[in-house]
């Protein structure tokens, strides 16, 4: 099988199977990361202070000017230590500060190598589950920062208007803030979603059988075809078409929200 017309049906079939896996990973990531990102966003904005109840007492009795730096640290710990916010921002830093490829490798291999217990199971299912976990967590962290920007970008007066009507915090968030935030974050979220389409190919590093893996197979040799580089190049068409469709969809969503001005 050396001519293009002989190879094409076989390659097309294999790439379709691979792209289906790509699509599954894409969908699972969005389904998981969109809500998880919101939870992380709330964590990163949390004002809960572990020792906040001591604050008035401490501030009444200390004069900051007379303190040594170590005493100032202690005062900070009592008055401004927000463990949930600190921990969340630490996690976001680590996740955004390291390559997704490395996260995939660590998540997939670490349990088996270190705990001698491959929690992911064997085969393609195991690789898919591990990839999903890595992608959901990684994207949730990026989404959370976009959400935070969106939430903080809704004017404070909106919250106050809800408050003075007597609405509770959750009523204010879901009825007042949420939709205004969604409108603000559609453009940056579109960016992330388009990036995600192509990032799924990183799971090639743990041999998830997505479309890049499927295309590469024909270089080494598969189904009687070897040394063919064009299938790998051809995967680009899949990404282009899919991101084209997404661009149209996201544009439609943006226009849908045009009925009000924030």
């Amino acid at each position, binding site marked *: 099988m050396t001519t293009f017309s002989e190879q094409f049906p076989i390659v097309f079939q294999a790439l379709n199977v691979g792209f289906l896996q790509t699509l599954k990973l894409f969908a699972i990531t969005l389904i998981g990361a969109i809500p998880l990102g919101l939870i992380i966003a709330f964590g990163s904005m949390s004002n809960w202070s572990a020792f906040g109840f001591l604050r008035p007492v401490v501030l009444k009795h200390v004069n*900051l000017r007379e303190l040594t730096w170590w005493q100032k640290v202690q005062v900070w710990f009592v008055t401004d230590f927000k463990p949930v916010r600190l921990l969340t921002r630490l996690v976001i830093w680590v996740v955004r500060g390291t390559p997704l490829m490395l996260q995939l490798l660590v998540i997939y291999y670490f349990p088996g190598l270190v705990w001698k217990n491959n929690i992911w199971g064997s085969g393609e299912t195991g690789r898919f589950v591990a990839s999903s976990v890595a992608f959901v967590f990684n994207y949730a962290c990026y989404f959370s920062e976009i959400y935070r920007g969106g939430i903080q970008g809704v*004017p404070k007066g909106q919250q106050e*208007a809800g408050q003075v*009507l*007597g*609405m509770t915090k959750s*009523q204010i968030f879901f009825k*007042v803030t949420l939709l205004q935030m969604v409108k603000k974050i559609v453009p940056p979220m579109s960016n992330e979603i388009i990036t995600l389409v192509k990032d799924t190919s990183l799971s090639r590093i743990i041999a998830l059988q997505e479309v890049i893996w499927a295309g590469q197979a024909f270089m080494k040799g598969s189904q009687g075809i070897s040394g063919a580089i064009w299938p790998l190049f051809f995967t680009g068409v899949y990404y282009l078409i899919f991101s084209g469709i997404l661009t149209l969809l996201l544009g439609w969503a943006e226009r849908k929200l045009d009925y*009000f001005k924030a």
Partner: protein
Amino acid sequence: MTTDVLIQVTDLQKHFKGGKQNQDEKIRALDGVSAEIHKGEVVVVIGPSGSGKSTFLRCLNLLELPTGGQILFDGVDITDKNCNINLHRQKMGMVFQHFNLFPHMTILKNMTIAPMQLLHKSKEEAEKTALELLGRVGLADRANAYPSQLSGGQKQRVAIVRALAMQPEVMLFDEPTSALDPEMVGEVLEVMQELAKSGMTMVVVTHEMGFAREVADRVLFMADGKLLEEGTPDEIFTHPKSERLQDFLAKVL
């Protein structure tokens, strides 16, 4: 007189920490303000900018948390941590300088969301009340418009009736005409005047001295976080006692 006191403010304090350079200097936005608001009374608060009049108003429904003092609303201490402020806020309508209508809802939805969510009114009932109120301010035909389609004056009239839809016992106004184009100030003041005539208890922070003189039962003059002088419009505008008030009036009148 004590029986008809609606809001009793005693020695209200609001301190902020100073900036980076002077960390132990305290800014006293409110420095011991005591006042009483009686049922059915229109109280106008005037004073130079930075005098604490807006902070005072925003403390009345705890949009700002006072750092000291006490606020009794209907005899209940709302500064108490165990008090459910949301319930009390339902009875205190507030109108802001910048309207703060919900941009993603129609005018009708803006007005029905709180009554439906919080007073558990049916949609029909809430909409009926809303349309009646909109009719009173001449905006019944704009019920299905979005806030961005209205002029500033129209937005503020909607904001007033949105608050009224909750059937509050008192209405707080925080410089309701300050963000309006001059030609729209009149229509908003007119609505407020109507409201005053109908017997609503009102606390109004404003720079509209004409309104204060005509509509107020009592005027409070604030400066530097203190309540310097209070009295009838006549006492305040024609016979000001303190030098600060005389100065202020000389500048604004």
